[in-house]
């Protein structure tokens, strides 16, 4: 008898628990997706991870996950970028402290300068990049192409360089070149202002 009496409570409890488990499952899936990708994912990509077509639903779970991360004491953060994209990354103030452990090149400032020059001037003839950055920039361009951050197009005998979508993703910039260049000008403008 006791059992029957408890049934409504139990089922309510069970439903609630099932709901909570479902929610947790979705949050963990989104977390897993953002972790393995290591790049900004679009809302569409994240919808497909949850096997749903509802952008609203996915955005709602993403909001919950972001809140969870910001409430927790952690070195990681989840950011919402423009164009409905989301990224999981290390908080910037930890970067200099653990940089040496990263097994990826492109941390020295030489190639990074060449990269920012290409991003700023793109599409730019390779010749001009070498003129501006010196002979060693041939090596930088090679490295940047190998890393998939820069793409080259042959135009007659010369080569034109531009940044890739992967580059834009890495820096949380928009994919549209002209908008991206405006964004970069603003960033560089700020950087040079503080430098001078």
């Amino acid at each position: 008898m006791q059992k029957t009496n408890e049934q409504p409570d139990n089922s309510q409890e069970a439903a609630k628990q099932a709901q909570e488990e479902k929610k947790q499952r979705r949050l963990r899936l989104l977390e897993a997706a953002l972790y393995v990708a290591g790049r900004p994912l679009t809302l569409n990509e994240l919808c497909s991870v949850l096997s749903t077509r509802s952008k609203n639903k996915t955005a709602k779970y993403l909001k919950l996950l972001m809140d969870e991360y910001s409430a927790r004491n952690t070195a990681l953060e989840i950011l919402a970028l423009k164009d409905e994209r989301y990224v999981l990354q290390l908080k910037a103030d930890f970067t200099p402290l653990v940089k040496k452990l990263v097994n990826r090149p492109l941390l020295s400032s030489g190639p990074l300068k060449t990269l920012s020059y290409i991003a700023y001037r793109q599409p730019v003839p390779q010749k001009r990049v070498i003129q501006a950055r010196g002979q060693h920039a041939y090596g930088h361009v090679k490295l940047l192409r190998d890393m998939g951050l820069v793409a080259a197009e042959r135009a007659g005998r010369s080569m034109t360089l531009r940044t890739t979508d992967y580059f834009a993703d890495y820096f949380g910039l928009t994919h549209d070149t002209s908008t991206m260049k405006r964004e970069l000008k603003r960033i560089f403008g700020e950087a040079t202002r503080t430098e001078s």
Partner: protein
Amino acid sequence: MSTAVRKPFYLRPPWNILFELNKLEKLKPWNVNISYLLRSFLSEMEHTGKVDFRASGVALDSSALIYLMKSKLLLTLQEPPPPPKPPPDFIPPPLFLPLRHELTSTTIQNLLDVLDEVLKGEKLNRLDKVVSQPVLPAVTDLLPQFDAFLAELEARMQTLYELLLEKVKGAGIIEFSTIIKGADRIEAVRTFILLLFLAQEAKVSLWQNEETEELYIAVGNLNVAKDERTTR
């Protein structure tokens, strides 16, 4: 009397460089335009109407020295100063990558897939194994102008030397004024410079009479007794 006190024009810039040898040694020879200096020196002298052979001689000697300095630098492959650079392009500051952990898709299977090709490449490379020597550009490619210059210099020196031998009939002394008789100033300067090169190769010896300012050229194996007037 004021003219006696006033310094001759050639002790003023830019010609003074030809008359202050101690300064000359500290100069970069590429910064001296010999042609301009000598032309302007001659025209200035023409203008004032005072022909001073002694000053001309010193000017020539200094010019030849600068010419020699340039030649020596070329021989040690010192490059002439590069053309001025265009104003620098704006180089934005480096973009530092935000750190993210990113799983990559390469698997051991991918590694195996490319290995096959690599091992084939290794075999091919062994077949046409060519001993590759470092390819250096030919000297003539590097120094075409220098080569032409040297050849020209050698030819002119040889011509002058033959002329001198002919004039002294094998060995003897001849005056500089005899050699340049009828020649214009530029030709005289050229001859003088060539004489300096010949002297450097010990084919001739030169000395000057301080009173007459005549320059004597000794050609061939002459046992010339040197006296205190001997100058270079």
